[in-house]
């Protein structure tokens, strides 16, 4: 009898713990919904707040919070407060569709800042387009994303420009010609690795692709793929993936070939890359739109405030989210909050000078920006010389 009581207690403790878990998840979903909707400009951030890529989604949310604070402190839009609401899509297309449907059914939301991965953004985008909701993704770079409709924007360059910059680092800056590609099997990874191949063939006659390996994102053991790349004689590897691909590949590759050079993409630009990769990511280089050690006063101010509030440096995608929110709020200031069609036209025509440089959407809803080349040196990000 006594025994079973103790058991019951333990089980109830576990149950309570589970409940707390569920609650904390729930709170994260919709913050700030306590404010009366009539008096608020609602900034909707949709991205992975939990799960493997939560680093990025939380970055989006932090950026939105920071921008909202700035606007609330400086100027008010028609006497309204800016509130941020967060939706968690766990970086899964299925969840993103659920989130999109919830946002649509709300009926009062004109703009969504999100989602994170291209494949996830592209799953949600048709729903936004059909319901005339503006989607601004700070990160989607898949070529087909902005073609989904005229309400779909991105504050990120299309992958062609970035892939060119990556290949340029590999061939011209590092002086290598035998390129190996290791890419993740997602919408973005498959299309990007294809584009990298095309660019090498068309624009870099001195270089050639010796091998291309596709891997499942998050499978941790990349040694079979690495052995094949190494046997093919690659002297530089372009890793098409996020930090959770670049760091283990760098480590596992350098175990069998310490001289290998590794080139990534801007989405590897994250503090996590240094923490996870340690000494192995030394020398990893990639192009970025936003570099936190820039001496542009706007960037300095943003990085300082961000660091003071969250304790770490903002990544490129966080900065792009920051500007995306800025674009939205500026547009609201100019044409008001009520008319989504007017808001869309305003966003499409706006010229915005932010921390990621000058932003002006073209007719597809894409942007064009210049790249900075960054390398990991002495455990920190520095400019590639």
């Amino acid at each position, binding site marked *: 009898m006594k025994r079973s009581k103790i058991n019951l207690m*333990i089980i109830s403790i576990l149950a309570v*713990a589970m409940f707390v878990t569920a609650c904390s998840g729930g709170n994260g979903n919709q913050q700030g919904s306590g404010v009366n909707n009539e008096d608020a400009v609602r900034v909707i951030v949709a991205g992975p707040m939990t799960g493997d890529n*939560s680093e990025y989604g939380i970055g989006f949310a932090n950026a939105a919070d920071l921008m909202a604070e700035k606007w609330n402190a400086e100027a008010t839009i028609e006497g309204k407060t800016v509130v941020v609401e967060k939706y968690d899509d766990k970086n899964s297309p299925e969840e993103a569709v659920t989130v999109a449907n919830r946002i649509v059914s709300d009926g009062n939301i004109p703009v969504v800042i999100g989602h994170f991965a291209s494949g996830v953004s592209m799953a949600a985008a048709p729903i936004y387009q059909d319901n005339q909701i503006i989607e601004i993704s700070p990160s989607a770079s898949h070529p087909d994303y902005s073609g989904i409709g005229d309400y779909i924007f991105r504050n990120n360059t299309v992958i062609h420009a970035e892939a060119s910059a990556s290949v340029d680092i590999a061939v011209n800056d590092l002086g290598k010609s035998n390129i190996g590609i290791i890419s993740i099997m997602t919408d973005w990874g498959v299309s990007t690795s294809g584009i990298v191949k095309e660019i090498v063939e068309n624009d870099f006659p001195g270089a050639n692709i010796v091998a291309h390996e*596709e891997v499942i994102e998050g499978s941790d*053991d990349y040694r*079979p*793929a690495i*052995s094949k790349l190494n046997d093919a004689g690659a002297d530089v590897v372009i890793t098409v993936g996020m930090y959770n691909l670049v760091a283990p590949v760098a480590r596992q590759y350098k175990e069998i070939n310490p001289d290998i050079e590794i080139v990534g993409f801007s989405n590897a630009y994250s503090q996590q890359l240094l923490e996870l990769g340690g000494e192995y990511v030394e020398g990893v280089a990639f192009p970025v739109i936003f570099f936190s050690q820039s001496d542009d006063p706007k960037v300095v101010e943003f990085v300082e405030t961000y660091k003071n509030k969250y304790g770490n440096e903002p990544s490129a995608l966080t900065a792009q989210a920051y500007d995306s929110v800025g674009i939205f709020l500026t547009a609201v200031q100019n044409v008001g909050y009520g008319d989504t069609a007017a808001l869309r036209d305003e966003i499409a025509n706006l010229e915005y000078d932010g921390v990621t440089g000058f932003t002006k959407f073209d007719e597809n809803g894409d942007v064009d920006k210049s790249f900075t080349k960054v390398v990991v040196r002495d455990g920190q990000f520095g400019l590639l010389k």
Partner: protein
Amino acid sequence: MGIQQIFNGVTIGMSYALIAVGYSLVFGILRLVNFSHGSVYAFGATITLYLISFNFGIMPAIIAGIILTGLLNILIDKAAMEPLRKQGAASITSLITTIGISNILTNLLIVRFGSQRRQFPSLFPDKTMNLLGVDIQYTQIGMLLISLVLMVILVLVVNKTKIGLAMRASEQNMKAAKLMGINVNFVVSFTFLLGGISAAIAGVLVSSYYGMAYPNMGYVSGLKAFAAAVLGGIGSLPGSIIGGVLVGISESAAATYLGSEFRDSVAFIILIVVLIIRPNGLLGKKEIEKV
């Protein structure tokens, strides 16, 4: 190079074998597939990484982590499995409970430590040596040796000690063992302890091999180890080793010759084929229906 890939496969296969042992031990005695085992493995790696961060030495941290994981497994048994056994609950109830525990454990780890991958220190020097044209890393040799030693110890414990005798007796007939004066609850707890310890050792070795640990690492590894246990004959310790190594090699071969995208499915393809041809696994005993 073929031999290289086989060696890579054997290394990772040994770690599956260590996890598979946990399934086999518990299944042998309780006739229960303990699906919480994968998250116990992740717990072992994550908690060890956490203890390492206190800087009281890597070895003491690993040992503490292994002991904690063993105790956690006992707690799981006492808190959830034993009450069900006492009520004589249907085995499907226990099975579902283990899945529930797995989710609780993984999510508690995520709440406490976050879901991101974190760097796990190397336990062996990052060097390779060349043996007959095969590049072998010290980590791989270390993993192989530790797994082999552990397997031998486990086999000895089960076959040569008094508690092992009690385990085998409980395995054959729990009621009769109880009547003979064996404290069956203690035997079960001891089995869970062994399972937890081997899972934690596997967790530490694999994390050091990949250089990272995270709360979700147990999900796929747990399922593959389960496939390995069934392949070798669930309930048989040598079977777990053979099953683990076979799954490891076939994964490595699939990744090399078919492409990395086939890697994760090959373990389960083998599982299904084996279940059709030899339902009891390679070394499994024929089931004797007990009355």
